[in-house]
């Protein structure tokens, strides 16, 4: 039984060896299901796609990529997607921040408002898109209200264009940004702001000097998650957008390559480019995050 008490744990009876030196023990086995899942549903498809993208239907190894970056109907989708995903993400993060900050003190309003703001999660992209089509369409209540109030004389277009997709992304993405930001904001010890106040900091300075620097890493994380979500936009781009024009996003172009042109290798190349763009944006943001303090956000060691 002495081996049970051996440093580093270890399964009873096993000899301490390289596994022990890595700090592995019986508990390490618990990560196996997760590893299998990642291997089967991420690593394998990713590698498969990568290899496939270098085996074009005709031409040399790099022909798919050369074609992607030389034909405007392909490479233009990168900007179109970024042009939708970045503003939607920024809007979400910067909308979530003041609302979460205002709700940082536990109260019954916090619970009510949180519940209301989180409801869109349960709706799903397609339902939100359908709803927006009706509400914001030329005959929807929004336009009629504006006309009744004589704000406008004739309905203007909010659907089947860029604005429609942006609005739908903000509505579906906001709850995630909000919940994430709220958890970061409430994690900051309110005594810190009080201490700053006794030292002469106005509420705005307290926010700028105390809350913002401590929140920055969390906001960067929230930005990345929201960005990745918006970048893969597909249903709302098709339903609410202008799939042939301003909202011809990468996911849509890749879909068309795969299931309309039946050119799987070319679609794989598109997907790889899409992944690379996301990776670049996310690593830039996480790189910036490294500039900020990332330790515990309490006032003491605890």
């Amino acid at each position, binding site marked *: 039984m002495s081996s049970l008490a051996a440093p580093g744990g270890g399964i009873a009876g096993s000899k301490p060896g390289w596994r022990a030196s890595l700090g592995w023990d019986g508990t390490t086995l618990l990560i196996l299901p997760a590893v299998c899942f990642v291997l089967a549903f991420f690593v394998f498809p990713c590698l498969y796609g990568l290899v496939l993208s270098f085996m074009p239907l005709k031409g040399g190894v790099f022909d798919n990529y050369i074609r992607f970056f030389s034909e405007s109907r392909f490479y233009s989708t990168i900007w179109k997607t970024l042009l939708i995903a970045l503003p939607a993400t920024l809007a979400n993060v910067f909308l979530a921040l003041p609302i979460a900050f205002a709700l940082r003190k536990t109260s019954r309003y916090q619970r009510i408002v949180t519940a209301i703001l989180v409801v869109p999660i349960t709706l799903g992209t397609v339902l939100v898109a359908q709803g927006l089509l009706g509400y914001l369409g030329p005959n929807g209540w929004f336009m009629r209200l504006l006309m009744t109030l004589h704000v406008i004389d004739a309905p203007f277009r909010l659907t089947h264009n860029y604005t429609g997709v942006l609005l739908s992304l903000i509505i579906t993405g906001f709850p995630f940004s909000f919940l994430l930001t709220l958890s970061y904001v409430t994690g900051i010890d309110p005594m810190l702001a009080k201490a700053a106040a*006794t*030292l*002469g900091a106005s509420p705005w*300075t307290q926010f700028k000097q105390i809350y913002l620097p401590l929140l920055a890493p969390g906001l960067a994380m929230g930005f990345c998650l929201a960005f990745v979500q918006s970048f893969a936009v597909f249903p709302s781009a098709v339903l609410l957008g202008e799939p042939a024009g301003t909202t011809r996003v990468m996911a849509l172009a890749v879909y068309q390559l795969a299931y309309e042109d039946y050119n799987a290798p070319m679609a794989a190349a598109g997907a790889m480019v899409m992944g690379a763009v996301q990776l670049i944006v996310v690593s830039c943001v996480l790189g910036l995050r490294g500039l*900020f*303090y990332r*330790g515990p956000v309490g006032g*003491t*060691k605890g």
Partner: protein
Amino acid sequence: MATGPIDGNFEILKLDGVTRRFAGITALDGLDLTIKRGEFIALLGPSGCGKSTALNCLAGLLPLTDGGIWLDDRRIDVLRPEQRGFGMVFQSYALFPHMTVRKNIGFGLMMRKVAKADIDKRVAEALRMVRLEAHADKLPGQLSGGQQQRVAIARAIVVQPPLVLMDEPLSNLDAKLRLEMRVEIRRIHKELGRSTIYVTHDQDEALSLADRIVVLHDGKVQQVGSPEDLYARPANHEVARFMGYQNSLTLDVVGGGDGETRLAGPGMVVQGIGQVPSGRAIASIRPEDLVAGAEGVNTIDVRVTGAEYAGREFVGTAVTQDNQPVIFRSPRRISTDELVRLSVPTDRVRVFAEAQR
């Protein structure tokens, strides 16, 4: 009205009926207190007595429900905390975790728009005062509890506030460090010559640090006085309890006169200092004055519930015949369930009227 923090010193800080209620519960009930410049005041009381509420009201972190606070002839309870300019040391220290020790200490000066060179000089001075020169560029998370505590003090005093507020600053430290920091706090207070209000539940801290002690209980002031005053002449049994009179026996008044009262209860005859004409009264006795075995006019018959060897003698716990708990000392070994007769000299017993509820 100026918007910046109050600068310079004051002669008199006056709390006039400061009251704070939370959802119908009165946490602090009409605190009247006048503090002279340079005084060290301790607010002493058990947890929930309102002492931290009083401090937060002074700092401006809690609005008053009633009453006012005056700094000389200026009313300050209407000012926001950042306008009062008092230094505050929090129980949890509340150091800014993303700023170095130097930045933490310089924060208040930065808020007062002091010139950079001046900030550097004054921060260096404060670092020297709390003996943390070697740790200036560390983050608070890299410091020990005692070091963090000193950063918190330095941060509060570097702006030379007219008043320093300390909320149980030593309660998170171990016993040895507590003693050392107590000396430091006293030294810094002397060196700066500013007024300090110090909240604590530890009577030793209050007795050793303060010029005057304010004892609070249930939101009400019980007694204000010098440590010697309170120790020698506690005004009621709540104050007495904090001054080491851990035994409070509720008994019937049976006689008295000449500044003394005679009390009796089941198996108990006690005479002590203090005049209560009739009814019930409380006899407060220090455990070290209540001795097993000795004979005298005051006798208390008890049944022992526990005994601990404390070096020179034994410390026992027991209950009286009507089940009131007492702590006493005994020169000989005692055992549980033994029946013992305790005695105490009359001049070591304080008699108080039973508290009005």
